[in-house]
């Protein structure tokens, strides 16, 4: 399985579990809001993704990439996230690290600037 499929699979299972619906009913091309996930939920679910991937992600990831397909594609193609390597790694402690530094280092490109209003 490639990285995109792994991430998609994880998101489908996670959302199915949290929402109490069958994984088969979730389409990766549908906006997540269709499944009753509201704006703040999709921010909190990023926290779980961070734990799983062991990497810091922008909390508005699912606002800017609102389908499972788009989010997974973005993570792998643009942000260079690779779940197979990082999933087991110790999550990084990010408390005191300045945002800019943390994100630049991981190749977020212009994304952070776009969503933080600068």
């Amino acid at each position: 399985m490639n990285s995109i499929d792994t991430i998609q699979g994880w998101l489908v299972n996670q959302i199915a579990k949290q929402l109490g619906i069958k994984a088969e009913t979730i389409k990766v091309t549908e906006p997540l809001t269709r499944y009753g996930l509201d704006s703040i939920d999709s921010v909190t679910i990023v926290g779980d993704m961070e734990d799983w991937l062991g990497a810091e992600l922008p909390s508005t990831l699912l606002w800017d990439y609102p389908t499972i397909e788009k989010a997974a594609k973005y993570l792998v193609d643009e942000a260079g996230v690779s779940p197979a390597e990082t999933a087991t790694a110790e999550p990084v402690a990010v408390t005191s690290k300045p945002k800019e530094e943390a994100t630049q280092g991981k190749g977020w490109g212009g994304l952070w600037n776009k969503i933080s209003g600068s």
Partner: protein
Amino acid sequence: MQPLKQFWVAEALEKDLGDPGNPESMMSFKQVIDLDEKEEFPQEIIDWLYNWKLQHYYIPTECGGEFTRFDEFISFVRVLSRRDQTAGIAFTTMFWSYLVWMAGTDEQKQILSSFMKDANGTMCLAYSEKAHGSDLLGGDMQATKVDGGYILNGEKWPINRATRSGVAFVLARTDPDGGPRSLSLFMVEKSKINPDNFSNLPKILTHGIRGSDMSGICFDNCFIPESMRLGAEGMGLELALKGFQITRALCAAFSQGAADTALRTTLKFAIERKLYGKTVFDMPQPRRTLTDAFLDILICDCSTFGVGRGFSTMPEQISVWSAVVKYFVTTTLETVVNNVSVVLGSRFYMREAHDWGIFQKVLRDNSIISMFDGSSVVNLHALLLQLRQLTKSRARNAGKNLEALEARLATTFDLTQNLPAFNGKKLELVNRGGDDVLQGLDLALASLEKLKTDSNLNPDTLYQIITLTDIVREELNNLDVKITESTFQFGHEQDPELFDMAKQYCILHAAAACVYTWIYNRNHLGEFFANGEWLALSLRRLMSNLRPATSLPGRIDDSCVVQEMIRLYNEDRMFSIVPFQLAKSQLQETTTDATPKLQLQT
């Protein structure tokens, strides 16, 4: 002069406003009650504050103002609010300028800064709609893109200062498909739009803050240029949520001012009023009620100063802390006002009998603070969604990077330390990296243990502080277990039990804030503060919300707290851990409001 610089503005403002008990002074109780009776906007007061140049303290220095830090800000808002919440809230709508300082272009910052400073201008925040209340994404206000700008259509209601403001921060839908990126925020300068396409709804009559300019705003095919958009298109919700982190935390200052007056005027009554040959204050039960109110104010003080400083030291954690403070401080102090009303007896319900009836006005005005800018349930909701993640990060961070954690806690809570400049871009929608305040409990306990060698400390008091702090840690562990076992839900159908867990989190958070405030300021806030009885009593008070009183250490003697309360009253100082100087009250021997200063019988 007060040695701590962050209180200079508050003290200077107090001095110039004068004694609120003197009808002739600006913002006197008499004046604000008269205005309230007439439901009249406090224009004279607002003009006076502009002349005093208080608005400069809302504008960061790099944008041409005098603002440097939120703990300074909190203190002067307390000063306004102890006299009149109506005027305080009206003037302080200017704190919404933070949206522009955070996300505006240089030109927008320049426009707003000179509007506030040179034109005595003010703003309003137009988010709510009649049909949608707390549901911001459900709003109907549309901003349709056209050449060079947008066409606004829709209505916002109820909006404070809607009619008198020159700038409205309007949240409107720019993407008809909906979703979290469908809203954008606009800084609408009313002087630059066509008045035919813009109108106000009639004044809304309210129970409290009666003189407020409450109405609504209607846009009817109103063109606004693109330069009025704040941040990128689709940034509206994100900016609104980050802006709320600031304004919600600052709302605590309104409540603290109100609680100060409620306690002060009731204390005045209790000291004067004679029954059964003694004063009301001499009776143990009313004295206990007032002492507990004073303790609650001190508890809230630690949280409010903490978050005020935390904006500079731990901005990425403020999503949690501002929700805690907006819920905990405002509802606790609302309860304080209600509790002391009993001591005031029938006079709490009279409009003329005591201090011009200021108590009743405080009671009415103050009851909106926990509701506006995000109600208590909305804040608890924002918090409970983060609880699972907070529990996980606490486990993950346990025992790690302790030096950095200790340094952050010291800068946040030690009131003598300089603060790094606030950077609004570091605010996060959800907490990043865990919550230092609860993460640091082990460090706090280790510091407390070391104090056992300090011969200046009463060992019984220290024993209580350590035991109770340990109970805070145990209760935090219990809560972590409950959170881990709870089933997470999405959306707005959360279990009431999760709301209870969020409330418990707030109590533990407040308790930890008290402990650090003490640890880091023992050498510079005076003897009463350093001795720590107030802390032992406060922690016991907080923990009695979570455990039966019989399972807590017994209540220690509170006479030093009683004496401190009376000292602050007699010397006209703020009821606070930093009892800064208020305007001196004048003795009016001939009037019925005479205040015989209480002689302490020690």
